[in-house]
Every structure is written in structure tokens, then in C-alpha cells.
């Protein structure tokens, strides 16, 4: 036993794990994830989700070696999160209202919805709404949920097969939660009553 208190065998075991993460990422995993991608559900092609998905795509674009918002299933994650029974309804209302405000602004300015804008127009309009407190809060909330979709446990619908963890060479902890132990199932009955 060395001063570090960890045996060589255990240490090599950890090296192997880290090594394999680094070696097989990014292109191969990303390519296989994209080829396995499920056809997108109907709700995703309708507002408010359509616009939300486009905003997320702008905030987290895909590249050859970088998973984008659709690779991390950011929209699915957001939908699961704001529609679960333990989440305050206020958040969902705010997210949806924001979509309305955004599209009103783009209609006014470009005579089309956000989804139809080019990349520079998208950047300009999002930076413009960042100037207002409500716009800033809305973007900040979407960004928070995006980062959660990237790095929360896959059981919540984002980060499929740990794609976000692999991209950032992040080693998750074990055991990971099964579906029946997700956070909203563990929250107390008292909590449920208030939310009902």
C-alpha cells in the first residue's frame, strides 16, 4: 500500500475506464447516437415546442464533435421537467409565455416566426430580448434546463446514453436512479398535496 492508499489494480481499473471514455469519443458515439435517433414526435413540430426546440438549437448547436440540443434531447427533457407532477405550474406558464413574446417580436421585426429566421437574425433577436428583465429570465431558465438536459441522469429524458457526460469526459456516480426513484417520485406526499 502506498501513501495514496489505493492499490495498483484498482487504480489501473480507473485508468481503463477513463481511457475508454477518451478513446471512443466523440465522433463514433455521436454518429451512432444520431443514426439511432427516434423519429421526432408530433408535439415537437408544433408550437410552443417547435420554437423552443429552435431556440435550444441556437443556444447549443451541434457540430461533428459536439452534441447539439437535439442530440441531448433538450426539448424532451424540458417537457418532462416542467410537466411532471411535482413541478410548480408557474414555470411552465413562463416558458410558454416566453415563446409567445418571442414570436410576436420576430413577427414585428422580420414578419415571420423565430423558426424561420437565419442564424444571425436569431442571435440578434435573442440578444435583444436579453435586454429586458423578463426576456433575460426566460433565456436564463432555458439555458439552465439545457445544461440539466446535457448533464442530468438519462432517466429524466435528456443526456441519452450519457452523451453529455461522455462529451465532457465526466465520470458519473453509481448507482444511478431508476425511473421509480426519480426526484419527483421521492418528494414528500405533503409536497404533492400542495402542488395538486
Amino acid at each position, binding site marked *: 500500500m502506498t501513501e495514496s492508499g*489505493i492499490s495498483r489494480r484498482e487504480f489501473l481499473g480507473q485508468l481503463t475506464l477513463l481511457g475508454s471514455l477518451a478513446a471512443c469519443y466523440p465522433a463514433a458515439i455521436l454518429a451512432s447516437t444520431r443514426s439511432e435517433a427516434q423519429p421526432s414526435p408530433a408535439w415537437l413540430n408544433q408550437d410552443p415546442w417547435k420554437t423552443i426546440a429552435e431556440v435550444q438549437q441556437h443556444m447549443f448547436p451541434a457540430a461533428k464533435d459536439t452534441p447539439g440540443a437535439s442530440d441531448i434531447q433538450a426539448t424532451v427533457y424540458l417537457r418532462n421537467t416542467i410537466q411532471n407532477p411535482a413541478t410548480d405550474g408557474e414555470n411552465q406558464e413562463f416558458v410558454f409565455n416566453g415563446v409567445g413574446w418571442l414570436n410576436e417580436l420576430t413577427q414585428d421585426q422580420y414578419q415571420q416566426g423565430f423558426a424561420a429566421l437565419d442564424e444571425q437574425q436569431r442571435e440578434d433577436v435573442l440578444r435583444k430580448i*436579453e435586454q429586458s428583465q423578463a426576456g433575460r429570465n426566460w433565456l436564463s431558465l432555458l439555458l439552465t434546463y439545457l445544461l440539466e438536459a446535457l448533464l442530468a441522469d438519462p432517466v429524466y429524458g435528456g443526456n441519452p446514453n450519457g452523451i453529455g457526460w461522455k462529451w465532457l469526459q465526466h465520470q458519473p456516480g453509481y448507482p444511478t436512479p431508476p425511473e421509480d426513484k426519480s*426526484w419527483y417520485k421521492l418528494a414528500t406526499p405533503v409536497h404533492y398535496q400542495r402542488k395538486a
Partner: protein
Amino acid sequence: MSYDFDVCVIGSGAGGGPVALTLAEAGYSVVVLEKGPWLQAADFYKDELACCRRSVYTPELSDEQHVIEDLDSAGDWVGEATSESGWDFWNGNCVGGSSNFMSGFFYRLKPEDFRLLSEFGPIAGANISDWPIDYEDLEPWYTRVETEVGISGRCVDHPLAEPRSTADFPYPPTQEHPVSSHISDACRELGLHPLPTPRAILTKSRGIRRSCEYSGYCGSYGCSSGAKGGARAALLDRAVATGRCEIRPHSKVYTLASDAKGKVVTAEYFDAAGQVQNVDAKIFVLACQAIETSRLLLSSTGPKHANGLANRSDQVGKNLLFSAGGSGSGDFDYARMSDAEAQTMKTRGPFVNRGLQDWYFINDKSLGGRIKGGTLDFLLRHPNPISKAMSEKWDDNDRLVWGRPLQRHLKSLFTESQYLRYEIFCDWLPTDNCFVDLDRTVRDKWQTPVAKVRIGYHEHDLKVGHYINKHAIRVLEKMGAQNIRSNISGSPPQNLVAGGCRFGKDPARSVLDPDCRAHDVDNLYVTDGSFMPTGGSVPYTWTIYANAFRVADRIKDSL
């Protein structure tokens, strides 16, 4: 007269667990009332959302909050509800309390901590007081915690080692991260004495508790293996197994009713459905963590206790303690290392387990001679990836970052360097500006007044913190760290809280007697960290456990 139970314990954390176990094992009937749910090891996963980003182990702040009173820029004390500020002062409301979520970093106090006033003299503006017991009085129970709770470690010859009655810890140390030996080397080159940090974590299985599985996700997380020595896994499960201890989760005690003679007769509580229930017992033991214990005493008025239980001398809630000091960190860039070294630094799982107590006492002319110092502990950056990523959400001009720049920052943050942290623990001097009271306007979801906490600190605490920080930075420099940054402040760490119900010999200046029984209520004891007149310069949990076992033995003798 017959009672529902011999003993009613309110709160199921490190203060309540030892009492429930000791008395149930001794043949007495015990009920434990816990405000939160009864989660088991099988409910705990390495889920950052559950542990740290949603209200699962602690209440929603809109349901239950505190009012935190701080100085504004004009020098006035101004209160703000935590439901407004988002500054959460809950630490774990479920069976086992916050001990479920500790990282189990355990130190004993030192003999001098029991007599801070006589050892170092008074400090203007601070209410320093000696304890009514000595280190020797508590030592047998510190030792008992090592086996009852399970503490792993390795005794080393050290100039500041506290006396112990056994040769070494009952469990060998946890596996150590490779960076630990680098820390030790740097410290020794600086003439310092690195200490292996003891942990309340099993390194061998014991009953249904398995040995640590080294997931690398310990602090803030509930333990899935049972290795962590929280009160639930280590004590309460055993208490329940005696058949004489009943735990009632979702039981929020809002008052202790007392009779015409001043004795406590019932604990009244709201159950999960919000219905009022009550339980009677011969002895009541309060252990709700310092802030809530003072709140409950102040809320419990009665014919003999117009200002609240145990509050005849108006001392309840006074001299609340946090832990002073601060923290710092430095980066170790993988690009400056060989591949093998970089892989070593990336190891996740084992504990860093290195501390320094070379400045537990400081003798320096620039600080006016010999004063009380503190402890320095090293750790890696917390592995939570979402909270880490969130640090990249805003740029220096307070604008949101998205798109390629965000992705580049994340990639760099996660893959280019390791990040070593240190934490400094110093005494939080007791003052008239740090206390608990009932708020006059804010109420929780049960319509009972919430605790108002004034969080003033003493300037002396910062002086000590800065002194130790200067030395901590040298250790990181010696190790070759880049981008070293640190922060010493008077902002209270809400997870390190004690005081509010001092024990002492003088009923005019303390709430509890030396056995932690209320001076003015014969059948009421307090066994969480509230009893501490001064806090020492280490985390409180081992001392709370030890004292609760000591008091449990006193209660057993009295029954």
C-alpha cells in the same frame, strides 16, 4: 401515571440518534418525531437533481423558510425571508437529518477548546465562555462514536494530536486520492504536519451496512451502501430493530405543552395530512439542529414559561454559532503534466483526506500574541456536473453565454484541469449579533412563526481566517497550482451551525445544565449542537454525536 413512551425525541439527526439507540437498547420505549420523510439507502442514488437541485431532502422555501437578518449598507439590521432570497438554510429534513448528506469529515475538539476564555482571555464584543466540562469528560464518548457510528482513520504522531484512550481507529482509513500524497509532500517541504482526515465512513462492512464503494459522490448525497455514518444508517436502524423505538416521519412538532409545574407533558405535531396529533412521555429530548431547536423552545410557552421553554433567563437562541473561515482553490492543468500524471489527477472516487492543524493555535506578534486559530482541509472540487456547468452561464459582463462560446468553455472546464480546493474552519465567536428569534410576521405553511436568524460575525474571525489563508495559498503554490483564488468572509455556512442553548453551571447565563438538561424544566434535554458555548475549529458532527451519547447515558441513569 402511564405515558405513551418513556422518551420522546424530536429530531432524528446526529443529536437524536444516539439518544434513541441508547435508551431503546437499555429497554426503554422511545418515539422519534421527524418532520421529513423516512428515506432509506434504497432511495438514494447519485442523482444531482434529487440531491442538490430540487427540494427532495429539504422543504420548498415557499412552504417553510427562515428570515435572515443582515446588516445593510446603512448599518441597519434588515430581515429577508429565504423564500424571497433563495438562500436556503435547511440542511436535510428526513430521518437521519443532515448527517445523511455530510461528507463525514470528522475531527475531535482539542482540550483547549473546552476552556477558550481561560486559555486565551476575553475578546471585546465576544461572549466567550468556558465549557462546564473538560475534554477528559467527553473523551470516552468520542471514542464510543468511533465504534458506534464507525470512523475510519489512521493516528499519526502529531504535535497537536488530542489525547485518546485507544491506540487507533477501529476502521482503517478510506482509500486516498493520488493527489493526497502530493499535498503531503508539499506540506512537509514547508515544514508542516499533514494529517490524514478521519471519516465517518466504513471501510469494512458491518451488519447490513456495506463498506464504502467510492463512487466519488459523497458530500450532499445520501449514501447507497450504508457506509456513511449518518444517524439513520448507523444508529436509528439499530434502535428500531430493538422493537422499542418507533420513528414517526412527517411529524412536524410545533409546540411542547407544559403543565402548571412547568414540566413538559406533550409534544404536539402536525402529521402528513396536516392533522394535529400529540404524544406524551416522561422525558423529552430536543434535537432539531440549532436554529429549529431554539425556535421550538421559543414557540413553546406555558403557564410557567411565558417567554418560551427553558427561557427564564432570556438566553434561548442567543450566541448562535456558525463556522468562520473561508475557502480557496487552485487549478492543475493537464497540459503541464505527463499523460500518466494527468490520468492520476483525473481519478474519481477515493477521498483526498488531508488536513492541517499547524495553526490551530497561532502565536504571532502581528496578531497580538497567542490566539486560537483553526483547521485547513483539502478536497477536490465537488463532482456535480450541472452546478459546475452553471458557472459558465454568465460572462464577466453579466451577459448570458450560449452557442459555441458556451460549448468551448464547458469543454475546457471539464477536460483541461483538475481543481483542488481547501476549506478553512475557525471559531465563529459568539456575539450579541448572532442569534435566533421568532419572526413576527412570516409564517410557514402550518401558520406557525418561522425562525429569524441574525447572522452578525466578529471581525476577529476574519483576521484569523486571513492568517490561515496566507499559509494555505503557500501550500497550493508549492504544489504548482495555477490561478489560485480564495475568499475569506463573514458569511455563515448554513450547514455548520451550533449554539443557541448554551450549557453551563450558571442558570442566569446558560439554558442547559452540564448534563444538557434545561435549568428550569426537569424533563427536557437538548442533544443537538445547540449546547455548545463555543464551537471549536472543526466540523461539529463528531462532537454532537459524542455529547448526545454522554447525555443519553445521563438520561438512562435518571429513568
